[in-house]
C-alpha cells in the first residue's frame, strides 16, 4: 500500500472510530437513564475514540516514514561484499543511488555488478516487506486502540476535558513552529559556515578585498586557490541598497504624507490600493523589467552623454529595487502618521501653521521613530532581496563606489554558488552558507531593532 493511501485509510478508520464512539456513548447514556447522565456530549466521546484510534497510528506512521529508508539502506549495505562497503562515503553514496535506481526499475545502461543487482533485489524485497509490516502494524494498532477507547466509554469518563487537552497540546505545538524554524535556520547555516571558516579564516572572509570563489576542480589548475574576501560583496550590497533607499524613502514618504494629509477620501481610496499593487508584483517580474528595459535604457542614456555604463549597472538594480520598496515605506509611514494624535495637528493649525509646516515641524518629528523603524525594515528587505539583483546586477565582485559599474551582492553570490552541482566539502559551496549566516544575522539585527522602535513608538501614543 502506498503511504498516502495508508494515511487516507487511517483517517477513514478514525472516522469510523468517531462514529462508533458516539453511538456507544449514546447507548451507554440511554442505559443509565438519559443521555444527560453522560459527563460530556456524545460528540466528545466520539472524538476521543477517534483520537485513540488515530493518534498512535499516525505517530508510528510518521516515525516509520522518516526512519524507513535509512534502515533499509543500512540493511542492504550490510549484504554487500566487503570491498564495496569499505569505499569512502561519497562513492558509497553513488552505489546506494545505483541500487535505489535499479530497485525502482529505471536502470540507465547495463548495470555492471551482480553484487549490486542482488543488493537491489534485496532492497526491493525489504521495501515490500517493510510496507507490508507497516500496513499491518498500523491497522492492528488502530483497531486495538479503537477497541480500547470504546471500552473506556462510561458516563463518568471526562471525555470533553481529555479531548480539549489534546487539542490544546496541538495548538501549543503549532505555535512553537516559529521557534523551531528560527533554530533550524540558525543551525543549518551555522554548521556549514563553521566548516567554511575551517577552510578560510574569519578575518580573511570579513576583511579580504578579493572575492573570486571559483575554485579549480583539479589542484594543478591555474587560479585554483579561490579568494574569499567578502568586502567587495558587502560594498556592492550596500551600494544597491543605498540606491534603493534613495529612491524609495523620498517617494514613499511623500506619497504617505500626501495620502494621509492632503488627499481627499476618493483619491485615498483609489491611490493607496493602486500603489500597493506594486508590493504584490513578484520580484522576478521586477528583475525581468530591470534587465530588459531599465538597464539598456540607462546604458543608452549614458552612451548619449559619452559615459560608459555597464549593462549590469548597480544603478538599474538599485532603481528598480527602490520602486519595489516604495509601497512598503508608504504603508508603514501612513500607519505612523495616522497614529499621531489629532490634537497635535489641531494645536499646530491653531497657531497659524500651514499644512506643510505642520507636517514638517510637528508630524514628522513626532512620527520619526516609527518612520525610522520602517526604513530599517525596508533596508533589511533590500539587503535580502534576491531576484532583482540576480537578474539585473552582475556577478563580478568589483570594489567600486561607481553606481554605473557592475557590482555583486550577497544574495547573488549565494544563488550562484548554490545553483547547479554542489559538493558539500568544497569551500565554494560552504561560502554560500557563510554569506547566508551573515545575511541572517544582519537582517535579524535590523529587524529586531526596527520592531523594538516601532513597538516603543506605538506605546507612546496609546
Amino acid at each position, binding site marked *: 500500500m502506498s503511504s498516502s493511501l495508508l494515511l487516507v485509510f487511517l483517517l477513514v478508520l478514525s472516522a469510523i472510530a468517531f462514529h462508533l464512539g458516539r453511538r456507544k456513548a449514546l447507548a451507554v447514556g440511554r442505559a443509565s437513564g438519559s443521555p444527560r447522565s453522560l459527563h460530556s456530549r456524545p460528540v466528545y466521546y466520539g472524538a476521543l475514540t477517534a483520537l485513540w484510534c488515530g493518534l498512535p497510528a499516525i505517530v508510528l506512521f510518521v516515525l516509520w516514514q522518516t526512519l524507513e529508508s535509512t534502515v533499509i539502506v543500512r540493511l542492504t549495505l550490510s549484504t554487500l561484499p566487503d570491498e564495496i562497503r569499505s569505499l569512502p562515503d561519497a562513492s558509497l553514496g553513488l552505489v546506494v543511488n545505483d541500487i535505489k535506481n535499479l530497485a525502482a526499475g529505471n536502470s540507465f545502461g547495463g548495470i555492471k555488478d551482480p553484487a549490486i543487482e542482488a543488493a537491489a533485489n534485496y532492497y526491493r524485497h525489504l521495501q515490500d516487506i517493510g510496507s507490508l509490516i507497516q500496513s499491518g502494524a498500523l491497522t492492528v494498532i488502530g483497531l486495538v486502540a479503537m477497541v480500547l477507547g470504546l471500552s473506556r466509554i462510561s458516563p463518568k469518563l471526562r471525555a470533553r476535558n481529555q479531548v480539549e487537552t489534546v487539542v490544546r497540546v496541538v495548538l501549543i505545538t503549532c505555535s512553537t*513552529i516559529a521557534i523551531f*524554524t528560527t533554530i533550524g535556520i540558525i543551525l543549518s547555516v551555522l554548521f556549514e559556515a563553521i566548516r567554511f571558516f575551517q577552510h578560510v579564516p574569519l578575518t580573511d572572509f570579513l576583511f579580504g578585498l578579493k572575492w573570486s570563489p571559483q575554485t579549480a576542480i583539479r589542484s594543478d589548475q591555474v587560479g585554483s586557490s579561490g579568494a574569499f574576501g567578502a568586502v567587495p560583496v558587502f560594498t556592492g550590497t550596500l551600494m544597491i541598497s543605498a540606491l534603493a533607499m534613495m529612491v524609495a524613502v523620498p517617494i514613499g514618504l511623500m506619497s504617505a504624507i500626501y495620502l494621509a494629509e492632503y488627499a481627499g477620501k476618493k483619491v485615498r481610496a483609489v491611490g493607496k490600493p493602486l500603489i500597493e499593487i*506594486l508590493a504584490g508584483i513578484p520580484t522576478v*517580474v521586477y528583475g525581468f523589467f530591470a534587465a530588459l528595459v531599465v538597464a539598456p535604457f540607462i546604458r543608452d542614456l549614458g552612451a548619449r552623454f559619452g559615459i560608459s555604463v555597464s549593462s549590469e549597472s548597480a544603478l538599474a538594480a538599485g532603481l528598480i529595487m527602490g520602486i519595489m520598496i516604495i509601497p512598503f515605506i508608504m504603508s508603514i509611514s501612513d500607519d505612523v502618521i495616522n497614529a499621531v494624535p489629532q490634537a497635535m495637528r489641531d494645536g499646530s493649525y491653531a497657531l497659524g501653521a500651514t499644512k506643510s509646516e505642520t507636517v*514638517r515641524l510637528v508630524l514628522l518629528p513626532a512620527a520619526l521613530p516609527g518612520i525610522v523603524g520602517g526604513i530599517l525594515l525596508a533596508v533589511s528587505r533590500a539587503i535580502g532581496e534576491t531576484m532583482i539583483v*540576480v537578474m539585473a546586477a552582475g556577478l563580478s565582485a568589483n570594489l567600486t563606489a561607481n553606481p554605473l559599474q557592475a557590482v555583486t551582492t550577497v544574495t547573488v553570490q549565494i544563488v550562484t554558488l548554490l545553483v547547479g552541482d554542489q559538493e558539500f566539502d568544497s569551500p565554494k559551496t560552504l561560502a554560500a552558507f557563510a554569506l547566508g549566516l551573515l*545575511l541572517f544575522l544582519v537582517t535579524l539585527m535590523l529587524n529586531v531593532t526596527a520592531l523594538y522602535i516601532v513597538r516603543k513608538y506605538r506605546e507612546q501614543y496609546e
Partner: protein
Amino acid sequence: MSQKQKTTIEKVNKGLARRYRAEKRFKFMGLSAIVLSLTFLGILFASITYNGYTAFEQSWVQLHVFFDPELFDAKNLLRADYDGLVKKSLRETFPDVKGRSQKRKLYGLVSSGAAYQLQDMVVADSGIIGTSQKVWVPASDDIDMLMKGHIDRTTPESDRLVKDVQLGWIDQLIKEDRLQMRFNRSFFTAGDSREPELAGIRGATTGSFYMLLITLLLSFPIGVAAAVYLEEFAKKNRWTDLIEVNINNLAAVPSIVFGLLGLAVFLNFFGLPRSSPLVGGLVMTLMTLPTIIIASRIALQSVPPSIREAALGVGASKMQTVIHHVLPLAFPGMLTGTIIGMARALGESAPLLMIGMVAFIVDIPGGVTDPATALPVQIYLWADSPERAFMERTSAAIMVLLAFLILMNGTAVLLRNRFERRW
C-alpha cells in the same frame, strides 16, 4: 519704539506669500511622488503587455506530407524517420532548392517539433500510413518572430536571422495561405522546451499548483492553530514573548534564507527528493506561516470580547467558546490573510532556486514528489535565454502569473469587503 519694529501681523503677512509658495511646493511634491509611482506601474504593465501579447499567437506552416509506407515498420512506429518526412515535404513544396546550405535554410522554416507531431499522429492512428495529409506544424521561432514583426525585413541580410531566400519562401507560403497565425494553444498545454516555439507553461503551473497545495494544506491549519493559541489561550509570559518576537522576525527574514534552510534540513538532512513541489511547499509553508499567523491574530482580536463572555456565561468551556463562536466570526479575516500569503508564495522564487526547483524539466509533474519547477522560476529561466522568442514568452508567462495574483488578491479584497463586520 523705533520705526523698524513691525507688528506681528505685519511680520506674518510679509512671510505669507513665501509660506504659501512653500505649501504649494510641498503639496506638489507629494502629488508627484504618487504620480511617479503610478507612472512606473503603468510603464511596467505596458511594457510587459507590449512584449508579451504576441506570444498568445503563433505561426503555423501547412505541410503536405505523404506517409510513405516504405518508411514505417509496423512493429516499431516510433522509430520511423519523421524528420525525413518533414524535410521531404518541404523539398517537394520548393522543388528548385539546391545545395546543402540552401536546404538547411529551407528546413529551418519549421520547428523541430514538427517531426514529433507527425510521430504522434501516426501513433494515434496508423491508418494514415500510405495516405497524403495536410498537416499544420509550428513554424520555427525565427519565422514566428518575423511574422510578428520583431525581425525587421529592411535590415541588411548579414544582420538578419531570416535570410533573403527564406523571405521568398515565406512570401510564397503566405500567398498560398499555408503560413498562418493561430491561437497559441501549446503555450498553455506544453512543458518547457529548448525551442521557444514549443515551450509552454503547463509544467510550471502544475508545479506551482502542487507546491501551493502543500503550502495551503500545512500553513492554514498550523497558522490558525498557532494564532488561536497565542491570542486565546497563552498567558502573557516570557515564552509567549519569545514566540511573538520570533514570528515577527521571521516575517522579515529574507526569503533566500528559507531556501538555505530547506536545502540544509529538508534535502540534506531528511533526504526528501530534490526539485520536488513537496520540498518547495514545505519551505513556502515556513515562509508564509508568519504572515498567516499575524493576519489570523488580527482577525481574532477584532472579535469583540462580549461574544466570548456570552458563551462562557452560558456554560461553554474555553475551547468550546473558541471553536463554536470566535473562530467562525474570525474565519473570513483568516481566510483573507491566507490568500494573501498564498499569493506571496506563488510569486516567490528565490528559495526555490536553493532547493533545485530551477532545473530544466520538460515533463509535466504528476505528483508532489516529481521534479518540477514553478511559474516564477520558469520566468527566471526563460529570461536568461538569449532567443528573442523567449523574451516574448517570458512576458506572456509574467502576464499569466500576474493574472493569477490579481485573481487571488482580488478574491481576498472581495472576501474582506463581503464579510468584514464592524462591531
